[in-house]
Every structure is written in structure tokens, then in C-alpha cells.
């Protein structure tokens, strides 16, 4: 069976600069794959190449190797109905109202103003920020801004029928970084629900327990190279975490979900 996202031997070189003549590698022959309905987390220490891989999938940086997304359109506007990307940092500093920010997600769509507004409100409600709808984005707290951006990205691929060929991909770079415990959970549940409707999700995550609880697969990156790739319980183990983060951990089984739980020693 063909994977929805098939990544083979992807290598990304750093932009050559005067200071480092040696062509340094940001990502070295990394391969992995994601199916529709699956959540893949990318874990690894800072600077391991997680965001670089995510950007390569998003089409933002040049790479050698092959990234194949099944059914992906070439035309930018149609493609935007299939792939939504949440960057690590948002630079928006204009006083849009929250609903306006989320509404930007509907630019590639032709679903009509009424339906767009409905989707915006549904996305806001899903991220638990319906009450902020009329507030100015610039006046929000960091976590609230993050939830607005998440709502925007979700609204971009909200309905399966909008996406050509039904291909929907969600790329998230550290989506939980600014969120409190409750909203981290809320977000991960929303992502699971989206995946259950056939979306392929790739996300960079630093919280290994959150990853272990909600993701299907994990890709561990270390020094621009792939350390491990596979089912979440295959990747998250003592040895891998030791080599990734240089910490001693113990892995136990979650009493309810049977997923691995990492305990620092």
C-alpha cells in the first residue's frame, strides 16, 4: 500500500556562508513515512533537524532525496487546501481581531463567506477560544495567541470535501510549547479527532509523554540523522532517550492506556 507521505533519503544542506566553508548538513538521509489517519511525532534534542524536516515537507526549503505526498496538487492554491502548517514562531503584530486571523485560513477556499464564518467559529470553539473571537490578537497572552494560530491552521483543512483528492496534511512545529496542561490535552485530542477523519499529522514535540500518549509513530532525530523510526513504543525506550537527551529514565506502562510513560530518574 502506498503511504500518504513517503520521505526517502532526505538531505538538507545549510546555506553556504562565509563563516563556515564546510558544507554542514542540517538533515542527513532521513527516511520515514506517514499514512492517512496517523500522527507522527518528531522528537530529538534542540538543533537536531526537526523543524528542518518539517519545513522540507512543507516545501519551504530545498532538499535532495524524495518527499512524496500522495495526491498532492501542484497549483499553490489547491495545495493550500491540502497542507496546513503551523510555524514555531508567529510574527503577527497587527491588531486583527481573533476571528479575522482565523478567517485568513479560508483564503485558498471558495466555500463562501457564510460557511467560512461557521468554520472559523467551530475552529475557535475547538481550541476553547470562542470567547476571544472579537478581541484584538495583539492584546492576547502567548498561550492564547498560540491557540488562535492553531485554530487558524485547523480551519485551513477543516473539511475533507474542500481538499482535492481528499489529501489532508497537518504540519505542526511545537504546537504545545505555550499551552497549559489542560489545553495541551485539548489540542492533542483535537489532533487525534482530525486524524481519525483521514488527516496525516506530523508534529515536532518536546514532551515525550504527550507524544507517547497520543502519537502513532515517532521519528527520533539526533545530530541531523535518524536514530529511530517506528511505532511509538518501539522508539520511546530507555536506550533511545539516553542517546537523545543524555538523561537516565525509566519507562513504565500507563495504567489505563497501556502507552509508555517516561519517568526521569
Amino acid at each position, binding site marked *: 500500500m502506498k503511504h500518504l507521505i513517503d520521505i526517502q533519503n532526505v538531505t538538507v544542506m545549510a546555506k553556504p556562508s562565509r563563516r563556515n566553508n564546510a558544507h554542514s548538513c542540517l538533515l542527513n538521509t532521513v527516511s520515514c513515512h506517514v499514512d492517512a489517519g496517523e500522527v507522527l511525532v518528531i522528537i530529538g534534542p534542540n538543533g537536531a533537524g526537526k523543524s528542518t524536516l518539517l519545513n522540507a515537507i512543507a516545501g519551504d526549503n530545498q532538499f535532495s532525496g524524495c518527499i512524496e505526498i500522495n495526491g498532492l496538487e501542484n497549483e*499553490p492554491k489547491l495545495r493550500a487546501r491540502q497542507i496546513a502548517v503551523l510555524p514555531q514562531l508567529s510574527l503577527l503584530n497587527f*491588531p486583527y481581531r481573533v476571528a479575522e486571523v482565523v478567517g*485568513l485560513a479560508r*483564503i485558498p477556499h471558495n466555500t463562501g463567506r457564510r460557511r467560512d464564518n461557521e468554520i472559523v467559529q467551530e475552529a475557535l*470553539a475547538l481550541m476553547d477560544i470562542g470567547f476571544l473571537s472579537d478581541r*484584538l490578537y495583539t492584546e492576547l497572552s502567548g498561550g492564547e495567541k498560540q491557540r488562535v494560530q492553531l485554530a487558524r491552521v485547523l480551519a*485551513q483543512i477543516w473539511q475533507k470535501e474542500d481538499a482535492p483528492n481528499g489529501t489532508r496534511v497537518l504540519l505542526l512545529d511545537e504546537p504545545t510549547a505555550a499551552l497549559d496542561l489542560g489545553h495541551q490535552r485539548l489540542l492533542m485530542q483535537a489532533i487525534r479527532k482530525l486524524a481519525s477523519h483521514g488527516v496525516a499529522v506530523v508534529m515536532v514535540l518536546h514532551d515525550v509523554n504527550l507524544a507517547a500518549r497520543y502519537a502513532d509513530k515517532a521519528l527520533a532525530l539526533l545530530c541531523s540523522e535518524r536514530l529511530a523510526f517506528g511505532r511509538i513504543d518501539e522508539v520511546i525506550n530507555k536506550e533511545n532517550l539516553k542517546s537523545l537527551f543524555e538523561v537516565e529514565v525509566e519507562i513504565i506502562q500507563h495504567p489505563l492506556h497501556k502507552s509508555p510513560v517516561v519517568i526521569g530518574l
Partner: protein
Amino acid sequence: MHATRNPLSVNSHGANRRIVICAAWALLPISFLIALSFGTISVPFSNTIGSLIDTFSGHDSSSRSDLVIQQIRLPRALLAGFVGALLGICGATTQGLFRNPLADPSLIGVTAGASAGAALTIFFAGSLTTLSGFSGLSLVSLGAFIGGSLAVIIVYRLATNTHGTSVATMLLAGIAITALAGSLTNILEFFGDEEMLRRISLWRMGGLDGASYQRVAIVAVFSLVILAILPRFSTSLNALLLGESEARHLGLSVQSIKIKLVLLVAAGVGVCVALAGTIAFVGLIIPHMIRLLIGPDHRYLLPTSAVGGAVLLLLSDTIARTIVSPIELPVGLVTAILGAPFFISLLRHRHEFGMR
């Protein structure tokens, strides 16, 4: 349970926006009439309207006030309106493109380049300019337009490499070129004689006193094209405020949009500076002020900034002509004096008015 929202609040924002937009449009004909009626001789509004109707219906009128309005004030008011509208909309576009609410069209080097071009023309062809065959577009204006275009081309080249155009680099390159062109103008002022010095510095302050129907025709062609095209980029500019890669992920061809916007702004500001000198403040303050009132959505911001710019320049020019009549002040001085306090009060009280 989250779906129920207060529908009133949305409507009130929309209503606010509608009031501001309607007020701006209502002010446009009023300030146009004011510009036509006031001057060294005042004409009552009713007579102004009467002579306007005469003008457009082709009636020959011989009264003195009719002549003043038709031959002197009408072209001048039209020039002021078009230049103001162009500066306003180009300012709004620049601020969106640079994602900086305090950016100004002069940041990409147009204004300084045009000044240098004009100064060069005054310096080296000073005696020729009065003999120029073009009565509408004098040699100085041509020099200014060429200078402005050259500056933008250089800035754009500096900021573009194989990875695309960096907006941040463009801003810095604009500052560098502005400094370079500014010092060139200063050198010319230093070596020029009294008469040149006076002409260069008057030109830099900006003025609409050269208004003629030929100039109006030129600026009208540019304005109509630019005012028609720029609003088509509203959605793109809205998305660009999120960031360039975000805009790309929303399906926009960011690089080609950037090129088109820079060219349009350069042409718009270039023709303004060429025909009316450097008029400070309109391109910076008007969009900023309109944004405070109605928010950053370019679908409303662009047209309203154009209207606001036209209103500000019409009123400023009327004041420039009348306040120390019969002497005329440079209009650039008046735009700053008129707009700055208003802007400061908006900044200080924006929270009280519930503005953005």
C-alpha cells in the same frame, strides 16, 4: 456550548467600520468644495458649484471667480486629490508589505532618489528648466521620476538574491540609498548658488503650485491605474501580515506579489514626488490613522487610506494657500503641522475610544 456568541458585538464592530468609511467618503466632496472656494478671493459654495457645473457642461463663463476656479483652483484641487490618494494607498501598501505599521513609502528610497534626481536637474540644467518644452511635466519632474525609479531598482537589486527578496534587507538597503541620495542632494545644495539652493529646498518641501491640466492628466492616469490595481492585492496583503512563509502556505505566490507591489508603489510615489515634490507624512500617518480606526483588513484599509489621503492633502493645500495669503506655504509643511497633533491625540486616547 461555545458556539453561542454575542452577535451584537460583531455588528457593532462592523457598524463602527462603516461609520468611519462613510465619514471619509463624505469628507471627500466637502473638502474638494472647500479647496475650490477658499483662496485669495473667497467664493460662496453655491457659486462654486454653479461654476463647476458650467465648467463641465461647457458653458463659457467670464466672471472672475469662474476663471479663478476653472483655471487655477480646479486643476490644483484635482492634483491635490490624486496625489493625496496615491500617497495614502501606497503608504498602506508599504506598511502591509513590510509588516511594519510605521513603514513609509520613502523607506524604499523613492523619495530621496527623486529628490536627488530633481536636485541634479536643478543644478546642471537650472537655466534649461524654464525653457523646457514640456509645460506639464517639466525637466525637474522628469529628473525626479528617473531618480526615484533608479533608487527603487537599486534597493530591490540589493535585497534580492537566489532565495527571493528579503523585506528586512530591503528596508535597510532603502535606508542606505536614502542616506546616499540625501547626501548627494546636500552636496549639490552646498555647491549651488543662492537661487539653486532656494529652488532645491522649496522643491524638497513639496508644493502643488505647479498645478496644470497637463499635470492633472498625468497623475490621473497613474492614479486610476494604481487605485484600480492595488485593492486587488487586499487578500494577499492580509495574508502577508502573518509572515511570508505563512502566506505561501495559504497558496500565494509571495515573490511575484512582492515584485508587483514594489513596482506599483514605486510608480505611485514616484509620480507624486515628480509632480508635487516630497510631501511628508501623508503616506505614513493616514494609513496608520485609518488602521487605528477600522483595523488592518486591507479590503477596507486600502480604499479608505486613499480617500483619507485625498482629504488631508486637499485641506492642507487650502490652508497652505490661505493662511498667510498672498504668500503660499509649502504644502508639506502644512500636512505635518495639521496631521501630527491629530495623530498624537489618536495615539494617546486610542484605548478610551476602544480603537485598535
